[in-house]
């Protein structure tokens, strides 16, 4: 997958409709056609197709044509990887901020 596809993931999932489309595909654990997806939303098929394209551009949805329909699959891998990084650094910084406190206390004791 070209790197460019993976850009702007945060912008892609910032939109509630796109989050819902993605969520629907994750829960379905199966491919859904664009028509099936569009049926769930009170907006035009064209608008839904646009949202799906944005999700496809960042690699969160794969689109596979079958006959006259196009089917969509969720691919959560890009999100999972960001999630892992964020979780890692959450712990990392928390740990470091606590270490700083211990360090300053220790240093202060020695100084007195």
């Amino acid at each position, binding site marked *: 997958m070209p790197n460019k596809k993976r*850009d702007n993931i945060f912008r892609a999932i910032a939109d509630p409709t796109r*989050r819902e489309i993605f969520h629907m595909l*994750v829960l379905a654990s199966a491919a859904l056609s664009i028509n099936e997806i569009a049926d769930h939303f009170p907006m035009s098929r064209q608008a839904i197709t646009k949202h799906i394209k944005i999700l496809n551009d960042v690699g969160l949805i794969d689109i596979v044509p079958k006959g006259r329909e196009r089917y969509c699959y969720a691919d959560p891998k890009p999100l999972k990887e*960001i*999630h892992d990084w964020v979780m890692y650094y959450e712990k990392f*910084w928390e740990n470091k901020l606590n*270490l700083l406190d211990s360090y*300053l206390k220790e240093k202060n004791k020695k100084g007195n």
Partner: protein
Amino acid sequence: MKDIIKKEQFYQFPISDIWKAISEQEEISKWFIQADFKAEVGYRYTFTYEQTKVTGEVLEADPVYNLVYTWVVGGTTTITTVRWSLKEQENGTMLTIEHSGFEGYPKESAVAMFSSSVQGWDAVCKELQHYLGEQ
């Protein structure tokens, strides 16, 4: 999930002590990370953390209040940013750390460097549902 991590902690120490601890390489090396560092705009620092090197450039150095540098993990090209902000308070200092720019990481698949466990598809979906539920 968000593209920024923000942590705040209060220390019962003067602001100048905190500033020294985050900006002088001898002090940084004692509590945070093995450091070749100078709090000067443009300085290209190197941190060594276990087997990993973190490099970056100092973007802001405003003693004793703000220190900002880029944070690039060795083997990747994604540039994240770390911002330390200090605020004087009664009896101490409030320190805020903000780390941003994670959206670039997936294209590197560099998470493997820090996380060796491979989770199955079910676990991925569960985690995602949890995440989506939080929105």
